């Protein structure tokens, strides 16, 4: 959060690889092709896709609302059905007890237990409401850089994979050394590669 309001946390990536000649058309196609699909009315466990930065329910981007000047602004939305381990444990125990009573046996076999757990998990998963998470990004086409508004490392990996899938472009995180290589001239960059940690005291 934070791209549009309040305080923001972000990291920078460089975008590596070539966009086709008709870049904007290509991006328009890909954004729609990889836009977010709602799973509220299905039983899918996971859904990921692009939505508008202004409205997480807008995945159609009428009038190319992801474009702002030379920038592409998108929100990566991930919806996931989750069942908390404590709830799962409770309902599995309950169901095991019921089956024991029904079959009039003191103990259940291993395979039956596995089957019960899987069945209960599926049932609970279907009832679970998908939890949405959103991460905003701002992609500068002229600089080939991307600002991603979270410092969550797991989200970085999700973005790198999904961005590559969507646009066939690689993301490379801009750590100081990598930024340094682009800021310095060739001779300085060669020396930068050679430096070792300095003792400052």
């Amino acid at each position, binding site marked *: 959060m934070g791209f549009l309001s309040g305080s923001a*946390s972000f990291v920078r990536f460089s975008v590596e690889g070539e966009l086709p000649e008709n870049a904007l058309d290509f991006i328009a196609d890909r954004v729609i092709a990889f836009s977010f699909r709602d799973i509220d009315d299905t039983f899918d466990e996971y859904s990921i896709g692009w939505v508008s930065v202004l409205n997480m329910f807008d995945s159609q981007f009428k009038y190319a609302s992801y474009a702002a000047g030379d920038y592409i602004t998108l929100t990566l939305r991930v919806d996931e059905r989750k069942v908390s381990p404590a709830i799962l444990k409770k309902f599995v125990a309950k169901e095991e007890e019921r089956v024991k009573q029904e079959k009039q046996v003191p103990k259940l076999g291993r395979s039956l237990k596995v089957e019960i757990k899987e069945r209960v998990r599926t049932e609970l998963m279907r009832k679970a409401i998908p939890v949405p998470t959103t991460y905003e990004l701002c992609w500068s086409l002229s600089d080939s850089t991307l600002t991603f508004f979270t410092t969550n490392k797991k989200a970085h990996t999700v973005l790198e994979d999904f961005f590559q899938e969507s646009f066939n472009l690689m993301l490379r995180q801009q*750590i100081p050394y990598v930024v340094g290589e682009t800021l*310095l001239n060739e001779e300085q960059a060669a020396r930068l590669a050679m430096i070792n940690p300095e003792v400052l005291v």
Partner: protein
Amino acid sequence: MDLVDLIAEKRFVGQEFLTWLWFKSEQRGGSVELPGVGDIIVVFEKHMLLEYGEGETNEKCICSGLQSELQEARTGLLMGKKLEQARIQLVQGDYEYNFTLSGALMEFRNVKLPKTAGTEQDDSNNPEEAEGMILERIFLFEELVRIVNELLRIFLETRTSEGWRDELDKIRQWIHGPSESTGA
């Protein structure tokens, strides 16, 4: 080199940069000269995280305090620690930014942008005004990154030049200086 290896092996570059920036800001009472721009204000405040060593010998020390002299952090420097994270106030012209910068991965955290008319209003209902607001915020974020990159460039140019030895002497004097002179 793989990025994962680079992150581990070149971790020190960002930490030395932050430590150097702290020195630079104190050298002239909070102003740092940006070539072609003039003086900007860089103040280290409230919160710092220092780090020493890698892997199992890694040691971290968090210091915070409003208006404090950050004596603990200074002692940390004396013990050979480097700055890994710091809360920084940066002022260029009319723009004032507050943000936490982490050295190793160059993460910008809790960035407070300068207050401007455009960013203060909620115009998200009108598409055209929304685009204007988005562009303004993008500009402010990019400006912050540009200034930080410019500071990084100055540091790396010195760090890779013959002049680094002199700069290093000054940094060492600064690290040893304040606590000795105040008799703490």
